[in-house]
């Protein structure tokens, strides 16, 4: 079983990201379970969502405490709460930022992970370019497909189209593809 935790703020599409990731896994014939961390959601408040992916039926209902991968949609959250709590020692970390991980001062977190496991992805910038609004979730899923795998870019794109039919969906697909290309090039380098 592969477990993903997504941190962000209300309005950033954190819950939708977890749902789309689960749909991408479903499209590949896997079992997947996406659920939000429930609270009185409001714009700007910290939000957490979870996604489990497995080849077998998923029966577990606890919140994900030891994620294999972490997506952080807003880097200011590192100062507000312990976002990396429970992250597996060989886990993946994707941070939405146009700056470097050193610049956002999370070296101590990066140092705990194997080399190359933590990456920065300029998802908000890509979202503004392709979608014309600062919704980083779909670009981050593209980055996830490149950096972590588990689901393919094609499945991510199809999941995005199902969540956002029409033009909006295609714009989000472009953002995801651009993020995928950017991260895949970094991984190859």
């Amino acid at each position, binding site marked *: 079983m592969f477990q993903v935790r997504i941190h962000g703020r209300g309005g950033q599409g954190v819950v939708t990201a977890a749902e789309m990731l689960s749909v991408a896994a479903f499209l590949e014939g896997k079992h997947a379970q996406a*659920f939000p961390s429930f609270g*009185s959601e409001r714009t700007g408040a910290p939000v957490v969502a979870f996604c489990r992916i497995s080849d077998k039926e998923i029966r577990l209902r606890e919140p994900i405490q030891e994620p294999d991968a972490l997506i952080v949609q807003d880097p200011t959250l590192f100062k507000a709460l312990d976002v990396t709590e429970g992250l597996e020692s060989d886990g993946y970390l994707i941070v939405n930022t146009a700056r470097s991980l050193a610049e956002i001062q999370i070296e101590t977190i990066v140092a705990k992970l194997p080399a190359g496991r933590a990456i920065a992805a300029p998802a908000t910038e890509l979202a503004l370019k392709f979608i014309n609004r600062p919704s980083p979730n779909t670009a981050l899923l593209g980055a996830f497909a490149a950096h972590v795998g588990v689901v393919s870019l094609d499945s991510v794109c199809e999941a995005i189209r199902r969540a956002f039919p029409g033009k909006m969906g295609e714009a989000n697909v472009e953002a995801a593809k651009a993020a995928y290309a950017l991260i895949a090039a970094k991984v190859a380098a």
Partner: protein
Amino acid sequence: MLHQIEGSKAMAQAIALCRPQVVCAYPITPQTHIVEGLGEIIREGELDNCEFINVESEFAALSVAIGASAAGARAYTATASQGLLFMAEAVYNAAGLGLPIVMTLGNRAIGAPINIWNDHSDSMAMRESGWLQLFAETNQEAVDLHIIAFRLAEELSVPTMVCVDGFILTHAVERVDLPEQAQVDAYLPPYEPVQSLDPNDPISIGAMVGPEAFTEVRYLQYYKQQQALGLIEQLSDEFAELFGRASGGLLRTYNVEDAELVVVAMGSICGTIKDVIDEMAADGVRVGLVTLTTFRPFPTEALNAALSDAKDVLVIDRSLDVGMGGPLASNVAIALREMLRPPQLFSAIAGLGGRPVPKTSLHRLFRQAAIQPWSGVHFLDLNERVIAREIHRRGKSRRAGPTAEAILKQLGQERAARLARMPR
């Protein structure tokens, strides 16, 4: 067909496949996406001969359902938590009148303190109302139970609640096999009421009944619930035959053979318990599980048969009868009286007001039952430090103030201290 879909949306589609004729709901908190989904389906004209009635309160929602059902319509509504309590009088009326309404409960805690999260307090508050109560373990079962519920309710003319863990299931996106309309039509015939109000053939429903007949009317409610025990099994078998999967029934067992400790629980927590059971089995510790799908009527005979070889039974309640303990544990204890050599009973309260129930805590709980048995009620993951401090604080002053606020203040101080220690 398989879908990756939110529980509430899947239930809305399944309910639409049951062809309700009246859906009424009060569409604000505490409500789920179920009636929102149904509202969309009805507005889009995808459901023939169905009226969606937006009402002004939960009391009105069930009152309209009662009127609709008495007029011979297949009626449906949904609520949770405080919403169920607000309709309480009508809940008892629907049962007393024998009107086969189906209602989904997206199980949530009841305030005060204000809490919007999951537990079973709402279902438990209405356990004596005369409704049948079925509990879903997964969203697949939630979908299936609605189809079974309409058939069950209408065959007996008894209202039925489908209890689905709020948020944990209602807001979870997972794989659900949604049946075809033809399958549901083959399973669920059009509603044929045993009583209906018809201007051309006037009758009255809801007579005043004095001491001379009240007991008999109540007894017949009891009798019908006893009949439901057999019917639930039969309808579950028919469901399995037609839909190709097992759902519903009175209860399910998991690994109970040779298990010294058998856990009894209801709802979505059973999935996590099964994972823990498998992990413990890998370590050579055998624990079993009885998942109670039917809580009302209480399946005494089936439960005792499932527990016949158990040495210890651990009941996990997701609600608290404050002056007594776990309501499910109390019910199991009554059932065990019928056994010749009843197992020892342990009671634990878990997952109140949305408190997560992690595997690690269940591991500890199951091991504790074997090595350090307790009497009375065990509260899983109770923060004893906070409790001790608050009891001490309250002992010092008469005007100690509100409990909830004091606990939140303590936790806030602890959190601030933790954050201050975090590396920057």
